[in-house]
């Protein structure tokens, strides 16, 4: 009979959410084990666009976003590296008067949450941003937003969790997980584990676990497409997005421009960029940033991201199984939020509650109100 290892908390998924939860819990003195089937931070957490932004999020995400932003501020103390986090500001571009009106309305709402935005248009806008194409007539600037390097940040959280005492097991897919009425029983790589708490942070694959406990949500995989140019002289001063969505772009210190937009292809497990999307976005990028007409594209990629119908994540407790917490489905907006989510999850474990409002992220919100699903006590 193989040895059984017991932990306070088991975490499924070594992306940024799982790793930041592991770090926060280990720092709170709990025994944590994290299972990652490949390498930590190699999936969506590692290949996303790298935007660290509060602006543009719906009202219900802002409290969590503002909290997460605080974690980003303390990044070097927390994980030992700066992750190339640059507080560049986020400029959300308007292409029409209607867009400008929309931005003004959003700024009003955001101010109520403590997020201060500056609206710029007309001549002041053109003077300040001569490098933007003429289709952009104005924008909303959030000075506290920025961008960072996901390839560095996500694995660094996992390393920090290890240093804090968590058992972070890479190349260790979870074979089985059940709830026996008192504890979670897990098996992976021929070893058995038990834990009082289970955190489901398995990203685009989290439904596999959620389903086992009757908590499946209507989440679909999406494959956001990304590109990088050769290093260019510095000219893009903010992390850029477009009101209403489209392409987004940022320039890193080394000079490369990272551009995102549209969709690649995938099969739920792996993602590939699309050459059709590449051409569309190349054209759009040249229109948005005319200097890119003189640049070379050197690489494209995509990743698998879980997307929910309302584009809000799933964060919070299962209503069926005690001490089961879900945190997945970030629908493309998880990079800023994840470090905050880790802290929130730790709070839920340690004290059973959190001051950060999570109602909008309830795991059951897609279940029709009339139906009630049978609870599952073991599977």
């Amino acid at each position: 009979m193989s040895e059984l290892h017991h932990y306070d908390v088991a975490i499924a998924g070594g992306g940024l959410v799982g790793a930041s939860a592991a770090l926060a819990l280990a720092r709170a003195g709990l025994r944590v084990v994290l299972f990652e089937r490949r390498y930590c931070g190699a999936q969506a957490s590692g290949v996303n666009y790298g935007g660290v932004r509060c602006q543009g999020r719906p009202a219900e995400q802002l409290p969590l976003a503002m909290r997460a932003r605080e974690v980003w501020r303390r990044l070097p103390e927390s994980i030992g590296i700066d992750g190339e986090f640059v507080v560049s500001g986020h400029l959300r571009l308007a292409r029409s008067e209607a867009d400008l009106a929309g931005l003004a309305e959003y700024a009003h709402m955001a101010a109520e949450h403590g997020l201060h935005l500056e609206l710029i248009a007309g001549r002041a806008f053109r003077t300040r941003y001569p490098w933007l194409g003429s289709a952009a007539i104005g924008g909303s600037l959030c000075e506290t937003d920025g961008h960072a390097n996901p390839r560095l940040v996500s694995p660094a959280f996992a390393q920090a969790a290890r240093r804090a005492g968590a058992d972070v097991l890479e190349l260790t897919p979870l074979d089985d997980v059940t709830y026996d009425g008192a504890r979670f029983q897990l098996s992976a790589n021929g070893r058995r584990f038990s834990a009082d708490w289970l955190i489901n942070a398995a990203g685009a694959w989290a439904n596999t676990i959620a389903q086992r406990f009757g908590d499946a949500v209507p989440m679909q995989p999406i494959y956001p497409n990304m590109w990088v140019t050769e290093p260019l002289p510095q000219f893009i001063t903010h992390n850029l997005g477009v009101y209403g969505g489209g392409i987004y772009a940022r320039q890193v210190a080394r000079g490369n421009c990272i551009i995102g937009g549209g969709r690649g292809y995938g099969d739920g497990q792996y993602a590939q960029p699309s050459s059709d999307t590449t051409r569309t976005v190349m054209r759009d990028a040249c229109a948005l940033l005319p200097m890119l007409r003189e640049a070379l594209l050197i690489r494209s990629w995509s990743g698998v991201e879980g997307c929910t119908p309302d584009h809000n994540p799933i964060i919070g407790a299962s209503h069926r199984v005690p001490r089961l917490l879900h945190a997945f489905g970030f629908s493309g907006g998880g990079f800023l939020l994840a470090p905050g989510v880790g802290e929130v999850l730790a709070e839920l474990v340690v004290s059973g509650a959190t001051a950060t409002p999570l109602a909008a992220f309830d795991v059951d919100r897609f279940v029709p109100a009339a139906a009630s699903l049978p609870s599952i006590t073991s599977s």
Partner: protein
Amino acid sequence: MTDAARIVIVGAGPAGVRAAETLVAAGLRPLVLDEQSRCGGQIYRQPAAGAGFERSKRTLYGFEAAKAHALHSTMEALLPHIGYQADTLVWDCEARNGQGGRLVALHDAREQNVPFSHLILATGATDRVLPIPGWTLPGVYTLGGAQTALKTQGCAIGSQIVFAGTGPLLYLVAYQYAKAGARVAAVLDTSPLAAQARALPKLARQPATLAKGVYYVGWLQAHGVRIERNVTLERVHGERSVTSLAWRRADAGNGDEAIVETIRCDALALGFGLRPETQLADIAGCRFRFDDTTQCWLPERDAAGRSSIAGIYLAGDGAGIAGADAAELAGRRAALAVLEDLQCEATPDAHHEETASLERAMKRIAVFRSGLEAAFPPPFGRAASWPDDTIVCRCEQIDAGTLRRCVRAGEAKEINRLKALTRVGMGRCQGRMCGEAALALIADETDCSMQTVGRLRAQAPVKPIPLAAALGDDALAAIPEHARDE
């Protein structure tokens, strides 16, 4: 069945041309796409047409003149029977689960989609390079590059040139330069003569090729060109360009006793054999396997050249280094496989004898090639000796010390993770010039084999493309509503 067939060949070198020839002989009309302006690949590369280049094929190709001429003439004769588009960069391949697919290409600054039902990838090779301190200085070129300068431009890469590295190309290019009147300061081979002697039985399987190799070495010696073997390359010196190369004997002991000799030169031609251009096969989704002989990852193929994806075939150096003769055979064999798979022939065994003969010939060459690898082993194992300040990734300026620190900190023991954390392989060349060195470094630091430290994944575009190329295309759709992210 054949009227629906759309056969596309990528590459107009020896493999691509012979594949096209075979298909035309069977009544088909393939489309041949090539990145260069004229056919011939690298070994039979031709100077620009209509520019007044005068040298004969004998001068350009030496002993290979007849083969070069035959290949060029074949292509010439094929032109009315094939589609042919030169100056075409195929930068992506979307294969549809064995149901054909499409190539994505750039030609004349415009984007193109090229659908195929059957695809023959004959994408050739580049020099295999390993770094030495100072190798990013102006004046350092690959052996293949040095050869190209002479062959297609009538230029030597410098006025006083050292040829260094290992492999048959080392002696061939030095010979070609000396014959052309360039000043060859020295030929420095990192392999010991004993390795070549031990490999003789295998090398003797291709006696004509072996004889040529022996001839080049003999000629160089007879003409007073200095040849040193069992060399360790120390450093390329110079402020703004090459001024000298420092080297020592590999077995000269360690540290202070080793005598470092410095050879004055203003150019260095450097190379350690060849590496295949497998990016399109990778992007198309072909399975790869690790080849022990050449210590590199190759796309899987059967004896006929079929890849792991139905309808995609691989021929020539682009699927595994075997030389020009093997490439011609492989091109023909792959095309015959296409015909077999199309059930084109009146009888299924129409070419049975020939395919068997082709496969036997390729097997003999494979034995010879394994002899070459043994005779001229690229010094991957010397990765430990590269000083920390040696630039490994030329594009991103990443040095060996950076890579070692990352591996030693336990952060990466696999190439894709090392790339994500250090940026090695993220530059314009996408790992062509640094990939093998990075693998060798990880293998050395972790005391593991090259095979276990992973495989660098190709990503589209396989070579950089100008963003401006998308501007002329009005037919591009907008990003769909549901895919508009902020």
